[in-house]
């Protein structure tokens, strides 16, 4: 560099370097670690900054993209070079290990590792990184890997851990005898096998666990009993067709007195039975189910009368309501209800009968899915021929109907709704359009 440009640089104020270390650490933490480390060549001020970074993020994908020349759209980009992938993985392993080796031995706040696209050649490295993070009192551990990588069991005795995300979760469970995570608040597990033994260990060992998400897990006699648990979310991907034949009967028992929200998104074939036991604080429930619940499910669900907000969305909502109705007593506290996934003109009476059990309902949101049953429109009872039940919720003040613009069957339903709410004078009706559903694009 010539002297002129150097002096020009000197004359400007170098604001960013004058900031305190803690702020620079914060900024560097927002970058991927390989980018943060690269800044060490900026100046002497920056040379050692990265070695004190409390937040480490290693992402194999972003790592790759900065190494590879960006390929333009075209066939070329689909050619997958096996050796190239392996070389990249090797470089990644080398990089992560070097960073961990050369950084100062200060505590790690968050450790994020994302290497789910390529199998790492060295399993022992992967385990060693996790052990390193645990030894440096990691608080947020977020790992995405391939299922071939198994986690060291020391994770389950990491007393500093507050937030744990493992995707997928693979661990030699049969050797696991104790879980001790006294500070864990949030847990997210993917593809875990939650049997009675492990679920008991897990919830006993995490006395302050508040938020749990299980994604694509297998539940076999899963026992969720926790005094601290507030939010439980279960997601089952419908694409897991191959798991249909596992022969497990998926069931779960929830006894969490402080649980306030429960959401279930997926096919009940992976959750044939859920028993709600002492869930007296449960207020928000969100179901995006398909069909196939067992009988006992409804009985248990109908007893959860503390619910204030209920969302029932997904296909075959009518089947669910029909199953639930005979068991239902009264949902006293329920004030907000959202229902979708059924043709409301066909199933108006089911809806009206369900609403009879909700005396304190204030707001009702209806997602009309008329296209679901257009094929059997011919035997849909018309308003004149069948008797439509009135809606009897005295405190109902607002009804919102959402529908697709190309759905003509909504008119019939609206007519029925106006007739059904004749006796409720002070009601506000809102009509809104749903975004038109596009056919899913197939990825090549």
């Amino acid at each position, binding site marked *: 560099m010539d002297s002129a440009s150097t002096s020009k640089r000197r004359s400007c*104020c170098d*604001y960013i370097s004058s900031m305190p270390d803690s702020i620079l650490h914060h*900024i560097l933490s927002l970058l991927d670690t390989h980018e943060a480390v690269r800044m060490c060549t900026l100046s002497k001020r920056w040379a050692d900054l990265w070695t004190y970074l409390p937040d480490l993020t290693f992402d194999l994908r972003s790592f790759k993209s900065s190494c590879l020349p960006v390929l333009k759209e075209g066939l070329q980009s689909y050619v997958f070079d096996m050796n190239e992938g392996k070389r990249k993985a090797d470089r990644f392993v080398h990089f992560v290990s070097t960073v961990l080796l050369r950084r100062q031995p200060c505590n790690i706040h968050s450790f994020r590792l994302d290497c789910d696209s390529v199998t790492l050649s060295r399993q022992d490295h992967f385990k060693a990184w996790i052990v390193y993070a645990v030894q440096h009192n990691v608080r947020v551990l977020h790992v995405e890997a391939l299922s071939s990588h198994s986690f060291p069991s020391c994770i389950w005795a990491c007393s500093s851990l507050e937030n744990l995300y493992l995707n997928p979760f693979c661990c030699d469970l049969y050797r696991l005898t104790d879980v001790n995570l006294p500070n864990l608040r949030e847990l997210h597990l993917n593809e875990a096998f939650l049997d009675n033994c492990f679920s008991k260990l897990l919830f006993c060992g995490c006395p302050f666990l508040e938020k749990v998400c299980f994604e694509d897990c297998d539940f076999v006699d899963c026992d969720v009993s926790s005094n601290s648990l507030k939010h439980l979310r279960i997601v089952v991907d419908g694409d897991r067709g191959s798991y249909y034949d596992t022969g497990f009967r998926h069931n779960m028992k929830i006894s969490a007195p402080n649980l306030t929200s429960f959401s279930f998104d997926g096919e009940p074939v992976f959750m044939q039975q859920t028993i709600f036991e002492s869930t007296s604080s449960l207020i928000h429930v969100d179901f995006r189910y398909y069909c196939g619940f067992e009988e006992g499910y409804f009985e248990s669900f109908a007893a959860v009368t503390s619910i204030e907000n209920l969302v029932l969305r997904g296909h075959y909502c009518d089947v669910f309501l029909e199953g639930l109705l005979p068991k239902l007593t009264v949902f006293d506290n329920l004030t907000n209800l959202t229902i979708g996934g059924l043709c409301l003109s066909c199933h108006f009476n089911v809806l009206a009968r369900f609403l009879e059990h909700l005396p304190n309902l204030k707001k009702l949101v209806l997602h009309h899915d008329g296209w679901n049953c257009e094929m059997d429109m011919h035997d849909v009872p018309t308003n004149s021929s069948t008797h439509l039940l009135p809606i009897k919720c005295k405190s109902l003040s607002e009804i919102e109907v959402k529908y697709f613009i190309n759905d003509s069957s909504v008119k019939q339903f609206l007519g029925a709704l106006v007739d059904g709410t004749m006796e409720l004078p002070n009601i506000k009706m809102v009509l809104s359009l749903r975004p038109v559903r596009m056919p899913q694009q197939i990825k090549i």
Partner: protein
Amino acid sequence: MITLISSDKRKFHVLEEVANQSLTIRDVIEDRRGRRRADRIILVTNINSKIPEKVIVYWLRHFLMPEEIAHASMSHKKAEKLKKWEAKFFDTDIDTLNDLILAADSLDIPSLFDGACEKVSDILKNRSAEEVGEISKIENEFTHEEEEEEIPSENAWVWRNEFA
């Protein structure tokens, strides 16, 4: 109404409810509650007048929808709008961003601090060290020899990973 005074002696009159978004100012107000009006002047010494203007604009925008922010029930549209507005707000040169960060740090305004830090990190992202040096006018005080030999050899592993 409280008055903020910047390092170049400009005065800014702000509603107390608006300025409350700074946890530092909120604490000061709480400490001085019940005293005379003259006490409700707060010196913000380490900040020049350009920054308080920006900070107050930020406060006002967020003050308009305080409840929605407190409860995550903000509707999708409003969230999008606010996001767009913030993107525009932070679209400024790196020096202003650094000042904003320092101001947000000393006044303890978490959302402003995080937003500005994120923007700075976006600027650093996908750039080589030389480019970053140019943008943020970082003075490279490495000697010629250091630059040619020591730094590359010491940090060879960084480069090997990228270009090998």
